[in-house]
């Protein structure tokens, strides 16, 4: 039987505010345990929440970026459950009236096809602390640094049909979030977390199959692997005549498998009710418009502009806008280098190759945008040839000096002095009488060979255009 996969993702992103959602504690990652927890975070009796307005603004910013309905009156609710790293015994979240309502985003697949994925909602909530089970002699330690960190939980519609689509959606979300500067969105650090709801159904069937929820997926790669594993598992179960149990499953990246996390099928009753310590959050059009006016250029818009303004093709533009840092890097290179096409070629081939080879982020790259821009400027003003530029590029990896200094110190400057070029040309003509004769007999393609000889003689430094021109003149 042919099966169809149905996936919906629940993505939690930590909003990158200085302080927590309802308290003034800092939110830095990696601090000593419990150094970022104040009396509210500890849920001391009598303490009360005060909403961090910046977190609200960031949530609205996200909503506007995905063309979502913005809740003009959002309501926080208490989600009740006991856990040692949940100090109040309830998590403040949003149930019926989230800050961000229905929205959508477009993903592009490898074959260039586009697909619109619905976002059901995005609600604000506070993060829990962490339970630490090592180093406590059979007891558990509680670290409340993370407790109360603002989260935006972004829930997609069950619109995704493959693990690849899920990854594309997640990457697009990541890209938008980074462009908006609302979260660090680093999966390995947990500032972006993804739970996947996965089910399968016979192709053509309109009813959804029973789904499982996969948790603990902490990289883009694992999203794909976890979903693929789970799809195969469900298929095996169903084809063996079994049935899928609705449950939460944990992804184990070391074994590359999902495992049942809770044996109980009974759903938790969280007894949500409106948080009486907070008033409903009411925002008006002026507030929303002010945030809209402040939105940066987003990846889709940027891509369109790169194509129209710089004449880039769809693929190159897509690669360049995928991350905000890459797009900013590229724009800086264009600005300084003065040639978008050249810049696009260099960024997407040489630079990208370098990053891939070393597994670097653009921010790790020793060749800064300013220097790559200067390199391109030197190609454009004929100081160096494209070929020599590659040598300079290599040198820039080891040497943090300016492009001009490197060209100077390595003597790579292109020879444009007409006297020097004339000498080269004369030498080539003298050493290759046969080819010269062939040219004179009308065999045009020999010119290329002669230019090559001249370049070789100059160790690549001669200006090929000048060489070409002069050779032609002398052989007339």
């Amino acid at each position, binding site marked *: 039987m042919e099966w169809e996969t149905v996936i919906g993702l629940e993505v939690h992103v930590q909003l990158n505010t200085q302080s927590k959602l309802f308290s003034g504690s800092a939110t830095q990652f990696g601090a000593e345990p419990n150094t970022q927890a104040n*009396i509210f975070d*500890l*849920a*001391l*009796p*009598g*303490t*009360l*929440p*005060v*909403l961090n307005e910046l977190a609200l603004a960031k949530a609205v910013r996200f909503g506007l970026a995905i063309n979502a309905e913005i809740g003009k009156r959002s309501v926080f609710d*208490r989600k*009740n459950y*006991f856990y*040692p790293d949940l*100090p*109040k*015994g*309830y998590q403040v979240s949003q149930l019926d009236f989230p800050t961000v309502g229905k929205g959508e985003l477009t993903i592009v697949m490898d074959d260039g096809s586009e697909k619109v994925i619905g976002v059901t909602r995005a609600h604000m909530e506070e993060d829990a602390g962490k339970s630490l089970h090592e180093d406590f002699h059979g007891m*558990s330690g*509680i670290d409340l640094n993370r407790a109360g960190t603002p989260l935006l939980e972004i829930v997609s519609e069950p619109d995704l049909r493959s693990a690849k689509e899920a990854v594309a959606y997640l990457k697009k979300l990541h890209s938008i979030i980074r462009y908006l500067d609302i979260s660090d969105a680093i999966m390995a650090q947990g500032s972006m977390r993804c739970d996947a709801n996965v089910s399968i159904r016979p192709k053509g069937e309109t009813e959804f199959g029973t789904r499982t929820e996969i948790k603990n997926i902490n990289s883009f790669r694992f999203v794909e692997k976890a979903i693929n594993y789970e799809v195969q598992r469900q298929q095996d179960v169903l084809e063996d005549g079994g049935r899928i149990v609705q449950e939460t499953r944990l992804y184990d990246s070391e074994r590359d498998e999902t495992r049942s996390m809770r044996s109980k099928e009974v759903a938790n*009753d969280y*007894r*949500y*009710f409106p948080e*009486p*310590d*907070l*008033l409903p959050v009411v925002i008006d059009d002026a507030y929303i418009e002010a945030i809209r006016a402040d939105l940066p250029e987003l990846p889709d818009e940027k891509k369109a502009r790169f194509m129209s303004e710089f004449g880039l093709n769809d693929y190159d533009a897509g690669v360049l806008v995928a991350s905000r840092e890459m797009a900013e890097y590229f724009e800086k290179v264009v600005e300084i280098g003065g040639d978008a096409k050249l810049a696009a070629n260099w960024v997407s081939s040489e630079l990208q190759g370098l990053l891939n080879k070393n597994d670097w982020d653009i921010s790790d790259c020793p060749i800064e945008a300013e220097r790559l821009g200067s390199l391109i400027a030197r190609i454009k003003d004929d100081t160096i040839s494209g070929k020599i530029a590659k040598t300079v590029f290599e040198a820039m990896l080891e040497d943090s000096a300016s492009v001009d200094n490197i060209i100077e110190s390595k003597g790579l400057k292109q020879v444009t002095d007409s006297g020097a070029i004339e000498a080269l040309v004369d030498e080539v003509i003298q050493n290759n009488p046969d080819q010269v004769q062939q040219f004179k007999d009308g065999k045009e393609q020999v010119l290329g060979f002669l230019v090559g000889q001249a370049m070789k003689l100059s160790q690549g430094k001669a200006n090929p255009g000048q060489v070409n021109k002069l050779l032609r003149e002398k052989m007339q």
Partner: protein
Amino acid sequence: MIEKTVAELSAALAAGEISSVELTQAYLDRIKQYNQSLNAYITVCEEEAIAQARAADEARAKGENSPLLGIPLAQKDIFCTEGVTTTCGSRMLENFISPYDATVVERLNKAGAVMLGKTNMDEFAMGSSNETSYFGPVRNPWDVKRVPGGSSGGSASAVAADLCAIATGTDTGGSIRQPAAFCGITGFKPSYGRVSRWGMIAFASSLDQAGPIAKSAEDAALMMNVIAGLDEKDSTSIDRPVEDYAASLNDSLDGLRIGIPKQHFAEGLNAEVEQSIRDALAEYEKLGATITEIDLPNNHLSVSAYYVVAPAEASANLSRYDGVRYGYRCDNPADLEDMYKRTRSEGFGDEVKRRIMVGTYALSAGFYDAYYRKAQQIRRLIKQDFNEAFKQVDVIIGPTSPHTAFELGAKTDPVTMYLEDIYTIAVNLAGLPGISIPAAPAGGLPTGLHIVGNDFAEAKVLNVAHQLQRNTDWHKQKPAGLGQEA
């Protein structure tokens, strides 16, 4: 001196007739003498009080003067007080020393008041008789066989017995007003949001409100001038200017329109109590007020709605007491679940557990609409009733409680106890200001006159209360049997 009002003591301090240290010592002595029988205080802060009094005297010597400077008062043990045990009447917090001050405490400290100690209360403010306290029941100074009312019973008993000049209380369903009525003193619950709840241990967040328990409406106004006002640490506190509540106390009541709810003068009201209320109303007529009967058609639903909303909120508010971070933890827990279960079973008393269970049930899947949502709808109807009434009248007056203080152990059925607050609860559901002041005693015991105002009509309510106290001396009645001077 200790029997005097804050206004009188303030004048005496300003005139140099007595120092704050002397006054504080006099209250401490009286506490030593009577607290054992009344059990009004859980914690007495002798040294700290004397130190605060000395600081107040020094400030005064430097020329400072304000109504509460050097005045010895008591804090209900629901308010967090830095460095002082804050129990909320519960075993759960028996050893909890707060690292911070509640806003109410901070403001009173800043005004130069002296904190004598922390007063007893029903556990987590859940009760109407002060019998649910882990630290034992409080006694009514009018008759130690009787309850002082609750949940602010310790504060009410302490004020009535002159174990302090004034005290703080909190009122979720009547917890300031009913004990004030039972103890023959003045208890004021401001509008919801008028006084900050920061540092006030939560029972039911949408209903809880702090206020003064005092010997006169004038004293209540003086304390309100200090504790009222916006607090950015409490998102439900109101950003609205605070009036000088003492300034309008003497406004004339000529033309005042008083509404009396027919539902508050119906079956269940003790005849003698009713007579006291009618006598007070007659006094108001003498002062130029007119009296109209009004209808609060949904009043009969208020107790039921309250006992859904309040326990629901409480069930979540009390989840933090889990033995993990502070407070009581059971001995030798076998595992996490065992720790939760035993900590909460051993740390909470029966009434608290009952309300946590009721609230948990009301919020459960499948019951939410029938209980919590329905209760919120009733709450809106009750508010509408008041809105309608206040189109016709300026204040609403009736009895605070259907009867006088009852004997300890007299009410064992929880529902009978819940009906104690039948006249006061609707005011919390609607978020309105209400005061209880003494009317004529009935059968030798105090009665309470309940005056309710419209939203943020604190000044009007205090004015109406003060005018009765200017023209009668019911509020000056003292319990017999306790010596006037230590």
